[in-house]
């Protein structure tokens, strides 16, 4: 395992974890842009742009792009989050150069008007699809309620209205500002020929003009409130909760992940034994998510509407109990075993390593080996957990419930 980096004159960085023993490689362009970088009228543009990137370049039609990825036998896709847009392909090592050629080319898309209008329809379908599924848009709603005017409150998809009102020109302007070589980088993992990679990227990206980009990372001032949204046609009642947690810059993020595992992993956690094992809830879990300048615990509970009030009570009791009495050494040991095994299993595939290498570089500008991550998990003590618990309590936060319940008595009590 060998970590290499190189920076082109225009600021574009190339980072790779080279592993001679791998059979395949993961290769990706990581762009530091997402919904947090949008304005009200551009809501959804990062994600829409991610779709448009596959719609062709001066050298390739949309059909060519799809066809060529398939010809390379690539397992490829892209995703957009609050703060990143990632384009990646897992391929056999002999296809490194054509994969670089294709990915680099689509990073300079044509953004043609007719493709733009056609793809808009697909985006609207995607928004409608999610609107029909649990939690029926409440994942966006809860961020808005919790973060208020903070950029993290912004929806990744945007709304049907904002997407329909977007123009191709607005997207072009956004693209120019955000897809600058200093605001994106190339990451690779697996069986990578790094020296060749540098040349291949240089040949194709060296003439991309430099642009300075900025991202606002204001302090998050979060709220604490409860909202009940009535949705008569749902079968189940859903409860979502958002709590502040260590951010991606924080060394406490490992403790936060272990804490979330002990409290709300989908198996063997406190919420599991309290609500899932006895069949009181369909699911009850908590995960830790990290962003620049803010982190969150995200809780999810779904159950029969008639049990929702009692279950919410149980949830609050568990939170209070954890907050006042903390966790045990045995719970920590179990969570550590579980998380370490996940790291080892997850590291076997180059495409998974790509996301780890790229994610670390994106968020912290650092490289971490599998051994570093394992050591960080092993070295977390119960004191660390309790310190994080004190700094970011499990009590309070923002809660949203949606389902057949028309009102929620405890709100007023």
């Amino acid at each position, binding site marked *: 395992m060998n970590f290499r980096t190189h920076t082109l004159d225009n600021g574009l960085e190339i980072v790779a974890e080279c592993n001679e023993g791998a059979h395949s490689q993961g290769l990706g362009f990581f762009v530091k842009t997402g919904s947090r970088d949008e304005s009200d009228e551009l809501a959804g543009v990062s994600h829409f742009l991610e779709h448009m990137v596959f719609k062709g370049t001066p050298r390739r039609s949309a059909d060519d792009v799809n066809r060529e990825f398939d010809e390379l036998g690539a*397992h490829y896709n892209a995703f957009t989050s609050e703060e990143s847009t990632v384009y990646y392909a897992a391929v056999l*090592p002999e296809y490194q150069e054509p994969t670089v050629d294709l990915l680099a080319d689509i990073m300079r898309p044509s953004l043609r008007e007719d493709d733009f209008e056609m793809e808009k329809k697909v985006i609207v379908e995607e928004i*409608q699809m999610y609107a029909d599924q649990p939690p029926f848009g409440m994942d966006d709603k809860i961020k808005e309620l919790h973060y208020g005017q903070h950029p993290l409150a912004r929806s990744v998809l945007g709304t049907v209205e904002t997407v329909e009102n977007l123009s191709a020109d607005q997207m072009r302007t956004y693209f120019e500002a955000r897809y600058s070589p200093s605001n994106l980088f190339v990451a690779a993992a697996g069986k990578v020929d790094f020296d060749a990679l540098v040349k291949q990227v240089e040949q194709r990206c060296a003439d991309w003009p430099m642009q300075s980009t900025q991202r606002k990372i204001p302090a998050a001032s979060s709220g604490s409130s409860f909202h009940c949204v009535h949705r008569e046609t749902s*079968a189940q009642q859903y409860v979502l909760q958002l709590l502040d947690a260590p951010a991606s810059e924080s060394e406490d993020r490992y403790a936060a992940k272990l804490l979330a595992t002990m409290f709300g992993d989908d*198996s063997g956690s406190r919420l599991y034994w309290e609500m899932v094992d006895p069949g009181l809830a369909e699911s009850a879990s908590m995960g830790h998510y990290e962003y620049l300048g803010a982190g969150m615990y995200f809780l999810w509970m779904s159950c*029969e509407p008639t049990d929702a009030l009692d279950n919410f009570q149980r949830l609050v009791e568990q939170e209070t109990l954890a907050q006042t009495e903390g966790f045990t050494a045995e719970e920590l040991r179990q969570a550590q075993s579980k998380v370490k*095994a996940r790291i080892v*299993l997850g590291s076997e595939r180059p*495409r998974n390593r790509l996301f780890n290498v790229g994610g670390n570089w994106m968020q912290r500008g650092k490289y971490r080996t599998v051994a570093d991550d394992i050591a960080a998990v092993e070295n977390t003590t119960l004191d660390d957990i309790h310190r994080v618990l004190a700094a970011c309590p499990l009590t309070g936060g923002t809660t949203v419930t949606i389902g057949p319940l028309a009102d929620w008595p405890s709100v007023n009590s």
Partner: protein
Amino acid sequence: MSPVSQVQRREAHIHQLDNGMVLVGEPTDAVESAAFTLLVPSGYSTDPANRLGLSSLLCDMVLRGAGKRDSRALINDLEILGVERGESVGASQTSFSSATIASNLFDALSIYADIVRRPALPANQLDYGKLVCLQELRGSEDEPSQKLMIKLRERAYPSPWGRSSNGDEAGIQDSTTENVAEHFANCYRPNGTILGVAGKFEWPALVEQVESYFGSWQSTAPVEVDDSTTVNSQVHAQHESNQCHIGIAFPSVPYRDPDYLRAWAAVGVLSGGMSSRLFTEVREKRGLCYTVSATLQTQLERARVLCYAGTTAERAQETLDVTFDELVKLGGGVRADELNRLKARIKSGLIMQQESSSARSGSIARDWYHLGRVRTLEEIGALIDELTSDEVSSYLESHPPQDFTFATLGPAPLKLPQITG
């Protein structure tokens, strides 16, 4: 450029226990993990007609304590071993899958031997188990695409092969401790059980351990599948949603059929990769939906191609018509360039599968079930290399997509295509 990647030669080992259980293993030093897939012959097809969902309930119950461990100790010990686990109930089997660091393989296996041989099936937790199953049933009501596919399978397969593994509310509510115990006695048996293991381990040591964990398991006669019930359901299900969900199915050939790879390749041309026909025609050219796909789902003796598309109500009719049109057109054959792209994807997929112990343990266990042997990745690679577009086209000529089954779910019914001929 690097030399052309080849699938590594990895040998699959087979060991049959005297009680009929089969162990298949594919050891490799290339990974640090080991994974297994344990297939036990308790599938939804074995559920009594008035106890639909019993296999799922039993699958929940066997994890509520086994051997010397109670419910909590069982889950905790698996987690301390770092086991990433999963369970699912299929048509003919319940699948228990587990992956962990290689050094914990045998300890994990010994716990699973308890789970499938000596579960506590605690009477005082039966209500919990039932509630878990009922929650699952209710939850699927809120997932329109999942609901549609359950309906499509139910309509496309002869009973009991198209059932939902979730069963139904009455079947779960009516299940008693005796039903659960009886189903366990009938279906959790070594004859018909397959254990697939892949990753870092020594084969002789594995055989020895498996003999000690499972060797004394007593075989029993297989249960007769009750196919006396028929399911009648309407094409359209009313659902208050923004999108309309469309399902189309047609018969295909199962995995063990000599034509399987051709049938599979034909579906790949239809729906593998973004240059596939459905993606191109339905999404790229017309922007009709975000999701459109077709998969070949195989059981031991029958298979169906299941297509799905989800789109807003006002565009649903066009989506159905365009999708259906592509299925009919597939009967006209595939082009060499389409097949070559698919072959490239399959080949890289095979090579990448070497990088995952979990994927391999499942594949080799299922291979044994369907074929009574294990195909190495090298062998599959060679079969794919040999495949030609002429072969796929001639398969399609003799097996054109036909005998379609439809299902729709959404705010309004659609007009089904007129099928001629």
